[in-house]
């Protein structure tokens, strides 16, 4: 009897709660819309409220988010509470990634220039037309192909190092810490430590070694291919530890018994590697190379601080090119168009890569 009563009461309560939650969402949304409207009026000078900037809108969004979250708990109860776990991250990502990317599209179709006095205008496909004819853009895109290919060299070196670290050696911990060190270095610091001091033409130790070997003018950043290789080398120095750590973890997961069994059966070291270790390492290899290529497509810091794309654009990456387009010419509209086009290319490339990677893994799975 009492239990029925309780149910009845909680039913009324829950109905009231659900209604309250709905009201809350409506009120919060209306409030947010009002602030947005006021902000718009203010920015077009139609009705001056005295907002110095767009911050009120930001606060309104945060308040709306809080109200929305609370309303979810009111409406859905326990399910709403569970929703609260992922809601902050989703709202954050939508507000800070999706919205700016879409806003970027708006900028990309305008002649927005931060140093110009005139207002920016919508200029249709002018930016795209200009982009298609821009030699520097295609040049930087071509360079990206080389940088991405360099990842495979990094992978080979990292694989060798991981194998060595996985061998029966003393002081493994020391070597692991030492090999991981470059990963911790900031690219900007590396561009000084390696690029501007070790590779310095007159006194740098690397230049001295190069002279000793027989290269009489060891200028690491003067000719296109040498400069490109120097940048790749510095990038590899920072990136190899990342691949190495992933591969080492993969190697440690390879069951010792299988290798011992192969040894008993008389397999040579090379055969064991080709037939056992490498196939077993394929999944983690694909992960490592994929992640590294994604990282390589963002390469910018070392190039910006070291060569600024030179000599003659030989080391330019798309990111460093866009950076200069903004820094030197404040050409925000055009630079954003390049960035958005690049994003589309990256999405296509990475999707194809993931599909291809899945294919490789599946094919490998069928044959064994």
């Amino acid at each position, binding site marked *: 009897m009492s239990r029925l009563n309780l149910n009845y009461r909680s039913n009324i309560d829950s109905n009231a709660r659900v209604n309250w939650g709905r009201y809350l969402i409506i009120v919060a949304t209306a409030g947010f819309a009002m602030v947005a409207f006021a902000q718009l009026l203010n920015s077009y000078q139609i009705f001056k409220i005295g907002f110095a900037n767009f911050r009120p809108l930001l606060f309104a969004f945060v308040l709306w988010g809080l109200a929305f979250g609370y309303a979810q708990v009111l409406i859905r109860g326990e399910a709403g509470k569970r929703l609260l*776990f992922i809601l902050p991250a989703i709202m954050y990502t939508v507000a800070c990634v999706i919205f700016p990317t879409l806003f970027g599209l708006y900028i990309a179709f305008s002649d927005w220039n931060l140093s110009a006095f005139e207002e920016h205008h919508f200029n249709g496909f002018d930016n795209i037309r200009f982009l298609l004819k821009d030699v520097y853009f295609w040049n930087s895109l071509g360079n990206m192909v080389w940088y991405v290919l360099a990842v495979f060299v990094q992978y080979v070196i990292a694989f060798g190092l991981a194998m060595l670290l996985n061998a029966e050696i003393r002081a493994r911990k020391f070597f692991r810490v030492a090999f991981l060190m470059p990963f911790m270095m900031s690219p900007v610091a590396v561009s000084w430590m390696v690029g501007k001091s070790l590779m310095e033409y007159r006194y740098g130790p690397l230049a001295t070694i190069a002279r000793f070997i027989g290269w009489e003018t060891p200028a690491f950043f003067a000719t296109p291919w040498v400069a490109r290789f120097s940048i790749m080398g510095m990038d590899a120095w920072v990136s190899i530890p990342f691949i190495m750590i992933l591969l080492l973890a993969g190697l440690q997961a390879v069951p010792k018994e299988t290798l011992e069994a192969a040894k008993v059966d008389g397999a040579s070291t090379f055969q064991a590697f080709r037939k056992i270790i490498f196939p077993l390492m394929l999944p983690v290899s694909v992960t490592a190379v994929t992640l590294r290529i994604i990282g390589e497509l963002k390469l910018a810091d070392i190039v910006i601080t070291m060569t600024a794309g030179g000599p003659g654009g030989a080391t330019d990456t798309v990111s460093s090119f866009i950076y200069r387009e903004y820094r030197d010419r404040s050409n925000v509209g055009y630079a954003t168009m390049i960035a958005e086009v690049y994003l589309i290319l990256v999405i296509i490339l990475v999707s194809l890569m993931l599909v291809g990677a899945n294919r490789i893994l599946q094919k490998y799975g069928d044959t064994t």
Partner: protein
Amino acid sequence: MATQPDITRFRITGRQALTIQTVNTSRSPTSHNMLRAQRTASHFLIYTVLLFWTVVSLFPIFWTITTSFKNPVDVLQGRVVPWLQFEPSWRGWRTLGLSPDTILATSTVRIEFLTRFSGSVIATFGASLLAVTIGSLAAYGLSRFRYKFGRIRNKDISFFFLSQTILPPVVLALPYLVLYKHLALLDTHIGLILVYTLTVLPLVIWIMRNQFDSIPSDLEEAAQVDGCSSWMAFIRIMLPISLPGIAAAFILSAVICWNEYFFAALLTSTYSKTLPVMLASQTSSQSINWWTMAALATAAIAPLTLVGIFLENFIVKGLTAGAVK
């Protein structure tokens, strides 16, 4: 959504591990001595390569630190080994106002340096803390509950978060520049923290979801039977257990934020500039003052060098989360 590319699937499965072709070749008879000689030779080779790569990895760091204690003549002569080849001096650190004899005197360079340093610390800790907080919550939700919004399921939400990693920073940089100008967030610590959180959030969610997946849910289920809500169970039970994963996520985020240059160069100018930006602006000046630069670079890499030595376990744990099972 079965065909959706998913990085989480690249794992060594038990079946693959067990079905392995072994190679049958007849073993040639080798004497005991030859085997031993072979082993010694291969050991020698292994240690040579290991030492070579240790030098490759550590020499630039060693060079930077020692150069900060060199006099101009030592730099010009290319002297390398301290005490043997040159007598360490405080010259580089003196120009920063950080040598023993100048540390108490007023120094504008030191104030500048310390402002940049603290700018880096604030941005790094703020962003890592924010990312670990909202990232852990999201990871826990995705690991434990089933969400459904129309056709969108957990897998799609995870993909939504993780796919952010492919976004090149340049795509966001210029819209942020314009938006921040209107929001008065340019050159503020908060502005930088918001951007950095974004760059490390996918990584944090990735690490923490793997962490939570590895913990059986019996404990929370028991707690929920006892009347704990999902949030109480999370805070009282899961947080303490998953502390190693949280530490790994935090440390790795901090490393990435500390080294970040691109956004800092675009979005800060005087007030909240970070250390990498200061370093870059010094390197691009024409007359490179080696000993000063070396001291600056040393100060910039010192915190992470210590992290690398003492917290290496956490970094490895963070990097390898989910890559290998």
